[in-house]
């Protein structure tokens, strides 16, 4: 089969790899009908996530048709249309039972690697480094899906791929960011980053009752999307000082909650941006926390900062004194996709949201390399690339 393989930094290619097989009775094989490039795939593309090996199959946002099931997978039949959540979760450990599927204790065969840098291991993730399991990903024609009896969600025929695909990651991720803010009536929520996850965080904040949502980015097309799709107000961080603008827009209080949907590769103008870029380049910090620092500084006293952008390791100049002295709450996590898929599918079916709005480009799988470049450099106002195997 054809699959998008990570080859080296800034190098991906479509290669022929062996078709996957059922390995355990709880596996299923899915023939992929739609898959997407995630913003977090760009961290792999930029070589910022360790333990990638040449030939690793990429991709953790995918859906398709079940073509084979293990004998213990009773809930799926060959021919079912399913969306697959990006964290691999057993459904039976203490974390899974608590609904924290991205913390599954049993799905990372390389847990020891993650323990070395993070203390404990989170769940395995499709196509996302050996540190997180070394599972082949879903930017391919077929994928082996472990724990298929608890992961994949069946999609009714009335819901097209475009609307369902993003239940695999970015819609639940953005939604969780908004949910972590515990939004109350009247709240103003600020969202850093208007990429695909940011768009869903913005939309979700309005769905969860935020009075106003303020979106921060530098690309006019992305800011426009936030305004048009979710009714957000917007700030271009290259045009104005974000801190002053937020203060001004909130009567001097600051936003009640802030969502960092940017993560470890934030861009910042001027000296601060250069400082973090240099430190990251020489390995003195793994992550550039510019958006996070700004969110913490801007948040209302006693407010919440939700972090759903991906961070890998260490950050510098983290303003912890702000967190402590102003009683901020910081919440974070990889999305616990399993618990969000069903309720979010309900919202899609009820017409509250059509997640397809983020798609700007469609390419055949064979042109994945062009998709990565286009997405990385935001060419042609690229927000989201969907690949068709």
């Amino acid at each position, binding site marked *: 089969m054809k699959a998008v393989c990570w080859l080296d*930094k800034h190098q991906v290619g479509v290669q022929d790899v*062996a*078709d*996957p*097989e059922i*390995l*355990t*009775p*709880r596996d299923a094989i899915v023939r992929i009908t739609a898959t997407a490039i995630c913003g977090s795939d760009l*961290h792999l593309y*930029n*070589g*910022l*996530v*360790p*333990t*990638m090996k040449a030939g690793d199959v990429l991709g953790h946002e995918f859906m398709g048709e079940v073509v084979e099931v293990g004998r*213990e997978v009773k809930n799926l039949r060959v021919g079912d249309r399913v969306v697959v959540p990006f964290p691999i979760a*057993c459904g*039976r*450990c*203490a974390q899974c*039972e608590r609904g924290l599927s991205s913390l599954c*204790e*049993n*799905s*990372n*065969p*390389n*847990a*020891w*690697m993650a323990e*070395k*840098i993070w203390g404990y291991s989170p769940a*395995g993730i499709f196509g996302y480094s050996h*540190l997180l*399991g*070394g*599972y*082949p990903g879903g930017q391919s024609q077929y*994928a*082996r899906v*472990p*724990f298929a009896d608890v992961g994949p969600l069946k999609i009714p025929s009335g819901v097209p791929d475009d609307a369902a695909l993003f239940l695999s990651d970015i819609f639940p991720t953005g939604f969780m960011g908004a949910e972590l803010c515990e939004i109350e009536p009247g709240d103003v929520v600020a969202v850093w980053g208007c990429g695909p996850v940011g768009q869903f965080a913005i939309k979700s904040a309005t769905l969860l009752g935020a009075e106003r949502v303020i979106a921060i980015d530098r690309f006019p097309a992305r800011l426009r999307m936030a305004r048009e799709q979710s009714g957000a107000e917007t700030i271009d961080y290259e045009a104005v000082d974000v801190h002053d603008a937020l203060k001004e827009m909130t009567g001097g209080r600051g936003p009640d909650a802030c969502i960092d949907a940017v993560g470890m590769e934030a861009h910042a103008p001027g000296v601060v941006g250069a400082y973090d870029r240099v430190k*990251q*380049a*020489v*390995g*003195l*910090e*793994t992550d550039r926390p510019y958006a996070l620092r700004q969110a913490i500084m801007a948040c209302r006293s006693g407010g919440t900062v939700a972090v759903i952008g991906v961070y*890998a*390791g260490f950050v510098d100049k983290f303003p912890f004194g702000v967190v402590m002295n102003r009683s901020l709450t910081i919440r974070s996590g990889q999305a616990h996709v399993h618990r969000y898929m069903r309720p979010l599918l309900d919202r899609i079916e009820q017409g509250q949201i059509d997640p397809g709005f983020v798609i700007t480009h469609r390419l055949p799988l064979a042109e994945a390399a062009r998709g990565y470049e286009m997405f990385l450099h935001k060419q042609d106002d690229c927000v989201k690339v969907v690949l068709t195997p």
Partner: protein
Amino acid sequence: MPTHGTGRRAQGTVVALGWLGVVLGLAGLLLPRRTARMAGVPAGRPALTALRLVGLRELACGLGILARPRAAGWLWARVAGALVDLGLLGTALTSRGARPGRIAAAAAGVAGVAALDARAARALARAGDGTANGHAVTARKTITIGRPADELYRFCRDVGNLPRFMVRLQSVEALGDRRTRWRARGPGGAIVQWEAEIVEDRPGRLIAWRALPGSRLDHAGAVHFERAPGGRGTEIAVELAYTPPAGTLGAVIARGLGRAPEQELQEDLRRLKQLVETGDIAVAGSLRGETPPAEPRRPPPRAVATGGRR
């Protein structure tokens, strides 16, 4: 089960002794004149030189003790140094301007610290600091599994289950109620076999075993089962020890076993948890036969700690 307290107390003494060495060393090195006066030794040129050298040695030993992991060796080195110091103090007694009272006090101090050093070094060896005694390979790991203790006890007591999650074991056979025969892969694929006897068996609580006399490998182990708080199942703690008879095949095997015994035991326990909680052991590949159980054969890349460089 070893308690953590004793080991820690020994460690505390060691740290204090290390710092004492650093302080005394710096005093001798930087303030030899004042040190000489305190010790009642006349501050002539040879005495000052000797004090500087002693200071340097003390500093080195102190830092060596603090840095570990071979603290015991440095402690014994300092005991030897103390004997030299006592000799030097004895010589100083005969020189002009010596103050016998102060010299005697200094000698008592040196002897006292040496006694403490020797005691701490022996305590380290007793606390199972593998580097101190150089022979026994020990490992202890614990994991929480979401199953009742009785069920896990029964699973492990059926020794034939052990190779399902312990990668190094090829087979374990029950030869009777308490006797078992173990076959394990050593380094280079060599198979080593031994017989063991269950020496303690408390249903739902503890299984302890020991290799029978005459085995090529002196091996002992224990599994403790304890209820985890908050309905989270059972905390399992495993202790393993291998003591190879010197200079035999057993030594080679134990070295192989000992390369990363703690890590290997951790992986074995993780597989046990996967097996009983999910019904299978997690595999990442997509093809049958291409994924042996994940096993840390080498440390993770340094890039992990220093940013995304490969």
